């Protein structure tokens, strides 16, 4: 697969870099933009960011491995992040994640992100999403879903299935 950044995105990134007195600061925002566009951060993306910001690839790669939101392989079209932390756990987020996993044929005992073989869904446990008052909460791609019941979970799966 050849790696090419569309001109509109590139222009956006050039503008972004002007937000900082030192270009290196823009690396997180660059990675976000590239991940949004390509779905994950490839080796080429790392090299591209490094080259644009005057860095060594390792300076960028070490960000990809440090920050949990960056990923090095494509994930499912519907990315389900279930909050694992205390208030959500008290409200049943463990059972909720198991429910997602079972319905999708994934292993509930497996704790890192898991993607279905048809590439439609990824399920993962994440830490507190700052919405503990409406526990249990789940992020479905960019949307926060609050007080998620098993019925809500099935609806999320039905919507994702047709995506």
């Amino acid at each position, binding site marked *: 697969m050849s790696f090419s950044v569309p001109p509109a995105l590139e222009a956006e990134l050039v503008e972004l870099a002007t*937000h*900082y*007195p*030192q270009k*290196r*600061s*823009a*690396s*997180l*925002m660059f*990675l*976000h933009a590239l991940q949004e566009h390509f779905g994950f951060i490839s080796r080429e993306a790392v090299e591209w960011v490094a080259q644009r*910001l005057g860095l060594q690839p390792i*300076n960028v790669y*070490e*960000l990809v491995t*440090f*920050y*949990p*939101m*960056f990923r090095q392989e494509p994930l499912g079209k519907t990315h389900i*992040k279930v909050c*694992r*932390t*205390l*208030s959500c*756990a*008290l409200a049943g987020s463990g059972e909720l994640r198991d429910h997602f996993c079972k319905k999708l044929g994934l292993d509930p005992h497996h704790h890192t992100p898991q993607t279905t073989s048809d590439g439609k869904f990824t399920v993962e446990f*994440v*830490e*507190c*999403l*700052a*919405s*503990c*008052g*409406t*526990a249990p909460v789940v*992020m479905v791609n*960019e949307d*926060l879903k609050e007080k998620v019941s098993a019925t809500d979970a099935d609806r999320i799966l039905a919507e994702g299935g047709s995506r």
Partner: protein
Amino acid sequence: MPEQYKLILKHADSPGYTPDIECYQRHGGYESLKKALATSSRTLPDGKVQSSQEVVRDEVLKSGLRGRGGAGFSAGLKWSFVDRRSGKPIYLICNADESEPGTFKDRQILHKDPHQLVEGMIISCWANDVKLAYIYIRGEMPKGAKLLNQALKEARAKGFLGKNILGTGYDLEIHVHRGAGAYICGEETGLIESLEGKRAYPRIKPPYFPAVLGLYMSPTIVNNVETLCHVKHIVAMGSAEYAKLGTPNNTGTRIVSLSGDVMKPGYFEIEVGKVTLGQLIFEPNFGGGLRPGRSLKAIIPGGSSSKVLKAGEVFKLNRKGADGQMTKVDVPLLDLPYDFDSLQGAGTMSGSGAIIVLDDTRSMVDSLANLSAFYAHESCGQCTPCREGSLWLSKGLHRLEHGEGRKADADYLTHIAQNIQGRTICAFGEAASWPVLSFVKKFRDEFEARGAADEAARAKGSGSAKVPHS
């Protein structure tokens, strides 16, 4: 019965209130900025002349405003530490990383009333000669980041931001910077490293106090979202009026995040110290009490990093009597006023203002295991005691949670936690240790009973085949 006092959240939840600038201005938005910019300089009784910016900084100091991000440090004092003679630019960063488990108050402001934060920031920047500022928002709030960008764009279009703000000659730019899922970015020096495009490894203090050697090794102010919003209201009301809200040394209002085992979890804005922990949990206009048939077991009072409080505890607090003398009085847990000093007096902290309630159906072992897994996942890994210790704690608790514990685990966990706190670069070390130390100390019976039961089961051969080792 105590009521909420809505200063910051006055409009956020009103029907029809939208996050755009027109709506904000219809509700008096940006009038405080105009007022701040029109402040005149003044001559103090000792003949010293204060510039208009110094007057506003002085107002913030006199208001008694304490940081709402966790440490409760005086905002005015923090601003006074800024090195103004270095010749380097001064930066301001709004900490919108909101990631302390239990906390969901900044989220409300960011998503429902972003202009309030922007106005508070512009005033704070102007008062501190800041020309470039950032909002560091956690990566998991993509909508919040979009709303903020839109708000900044609207503010620029109206001349509240950018070059020559409202014709005063003052220039300021504010940009949004997104984090990417690491809790340690909430720690201010980790945040600064992250904003510089690096791994969020906190810096050692001294020498790297942000006020002197912060962003790009320049003087930097880091304040929480809620703290910066209060600045707007201090300017609007005047410090004397503002300081009448709340209680002495604990002025103003604060948004409390309440979650866990209550009937009505949610966020409540209160005058600091005017409402007790018991009222927050049990009054119908706050948490509404516990589920039917349940009783209170424990309260985590200020975010997951604060030391847990046990139902029935009584604390000895300092109280100033009518004669001005300090005396010690007994205050039961539920009568603790929710403020910085009372919680500190009770051996814990109000931290980020997040209360997590545990009822009698909950296991303290399992709850602590959940929290320790969080800290094990989030340690940045720079300091050996924190990197290794947080993992050992989590593994030890995982064992205990899954039937492979030992009676001695209570001591084992305490020993590890004691060897983390005070031995690390940043306060994450304490954040990871305090829950363990307090849970085990206050609920030791439960930890030992669980371990002893596992040992007995193994002795009978009916337990797990795995022999735990440390």
